[in-house]
């Protein structure tokens, strides 16, 4: 829902690094977005085209790497994917309780390519 201001921040971050490296143009932005980050990747792409116009990021390619969320089992320590309406560990027949982890909540600029 809040992708517009977030896209502005992405462009700000890319601009900052591009200027530090005296670049003329940013040709690519590599993002990492976890599936549980709450961020809609499609909306970022949509806003990016509009907001990047007339900036150093204009026409840059956005590459998005997605990360699947994992829970960590309190009993056996395994990381596993959550099933709907359940927090139970899916490793073999453990069935222990899983707790949330930061895996799947990533939202950062990994790197940029400049010219």
């Amino acid at each position, binding site marked *: 829902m809040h992708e517009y201001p977030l896209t502005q921040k992405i462009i700000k971050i890319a601009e900052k690094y591009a200027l530090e490296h005296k670049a003329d143009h940013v040709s690519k932005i590599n993002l990492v977005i976890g599936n549980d980050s*709450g961020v809609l990747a499609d909306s970022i792409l949509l806003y990016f085209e509009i907001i990047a116009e007339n900036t150093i990021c204009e026409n840059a390619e956005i590459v998005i790497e997605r990360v699947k969320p994992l829970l960590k089992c309190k009993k056996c320590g395994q990381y596993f994917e959550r099933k709907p309406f359940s927090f139970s560990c899916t490793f073999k027949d453990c069935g222990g309780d899983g707790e*949330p982890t930061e895996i799947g909540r990533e*939202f*950062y600029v990994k790197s940029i390519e400049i*010219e």
Partner: protein
Amino acid sequence: MSSEINVMESIYSENEKIADELKEELENKNVFSINVLGAPGIGKTSTLIQLIPKIPYKSFVIEGDIASDLDTQKLNALGIQTVQINTGGACHLDSPFIRDAAENLNVQDGIMWIENIGNLVCPAEFFIGEHIKMLIVGVTEGSDKPYKYPLAFEKADVILLNKCDLLPYVDFDEDFFMAGVRKLTNAPVIHISSKSGDGIDEAVNWILSVKK
């Protein structure tokens, strides 16, 4: 010729930096800040109206809404010092908003309550310099909310289960609700009704026990 530059910078980093500075500023002014989260109509404003008169410190309120200042008018009419933030569409408050509002309110020695935008999703993602997050949920919303909106529960320091006066009229499966909550957090769950005032004393005591 193109070259790749390593960035590894969180898109939230600017918000977090301002939030950290704000929290420190608030501590210097002896202000304890509570970020109030919950869906639209769950009773955030009603609960503040119940809690604030029972708190033995000065209260300051920041009201976040997409539009209108109805809640602010209501609180100011009760003599509670309140400022309004209209985000004009944004679904959460972020720290530059709060920093400006806190300056506006001239906060000092007391509690700053922030009624976040009514939304169970986005506000949970943004640290806005608060000391604690207070999540308000209700028996009218259904007992599956911890399963559907885990982040808000996970981040909450205290959960107020509101509208308990309506329990006889709704099918609220408390065991299912609590099982979901306990997978996510050990935060206390306090049953309240912001209509009858039941449970408000317990919530006040909890807040006073954690206030620095």
